[in-house]
């Protein structure tokens, strides 16, 4: 079951420039910056109330995020919902015909995470995250 929105992710071509814009716009400083090698991204988190705004910059040219940026340009990249149990959720979504990018939860910035295919979700890249 979906509990809440954990974060909204925005893809930018340059993280430093993106941070300058969003820190000014939101009036809030980023809480931390991290590199996620297996996803080929650098990410910065800005906490707004209970939801995080995540800015991501692709650092590897063949990453999925780099391809998204090339095709669609800068903008909202994905939305992450918090769930109790990622693997259980994936199983029940697959049974309802949803295409999965990750068949099983794996470690990510937001906890144990998995992505659903935008083909099944009206063009929206959806991430599920279970807090660890």
């Amino acid at each position: 079951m979906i509990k809440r929105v954990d974060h909204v992710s925005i893809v930018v071509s340059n993280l430093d420039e993106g941070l300058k814009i969003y820190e000014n716009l939101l009036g809030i400083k980023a809480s931390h910056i991290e590199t996620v090698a297996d996803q080929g991204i650098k990410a910065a988190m800005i906490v707004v109330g209970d939801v995080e705004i995540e800015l991501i910059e692709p650092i590897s040219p063949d990453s999925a995020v780099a391809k998204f940026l090339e095709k669609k340009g800068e903008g909202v990249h994905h939305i992450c919902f918090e769930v109790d149990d990622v693997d259980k959720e994936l199983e029940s979504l697959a049974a309802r015909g949803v295409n999965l990018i990750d068949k099983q939860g794996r470690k990510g910035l937001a906890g144990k995470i998995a992505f659903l295919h935008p083909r099944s979700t009206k063009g929206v890249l959806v991430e599920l995250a279970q807090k660890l």
Partner: protein
Amino acid sequence: MITRVSFVGIAVNDIEEAQRLYTEVFGLKPWDQGVVEMPGVKVVMFPLDDCSIELLQPTVGPEDPVAGNLARWLEKRGEGLCRLGLWVDNMEEEVKRLKESGVRVIESGEYGKIGEELGAKMAFIHPKSTLGVLIELDQQM
């Protein structure tokens, strides 16, 4: 001050079909009023604790000067995440702060009237100032 994220907006071509996806597949519950017609757009909200999900289907074409931006978005980028809503505690102060720091704020015209009808003060930040994200600012009245 920006206090919270209020919603994430998703542009869709067929709001009834998209609503089925979010209720039947994701198990979310729409607000009681169902799909609501507003000037230039059909809307349905799925309230969640901190940040809701909003589906938006344009009812006017891309040529409409007031509400055509959603249709233009769909034409260019296809269905997907298109909008971010933020709560502010004081709209006048926030708009002033943003403008002074060089951010392009859209606060006049038809949007203001829609906001009043909904019981909120409303303004938008142009995607040119946000790296491609249309941001809606709301203050509950």
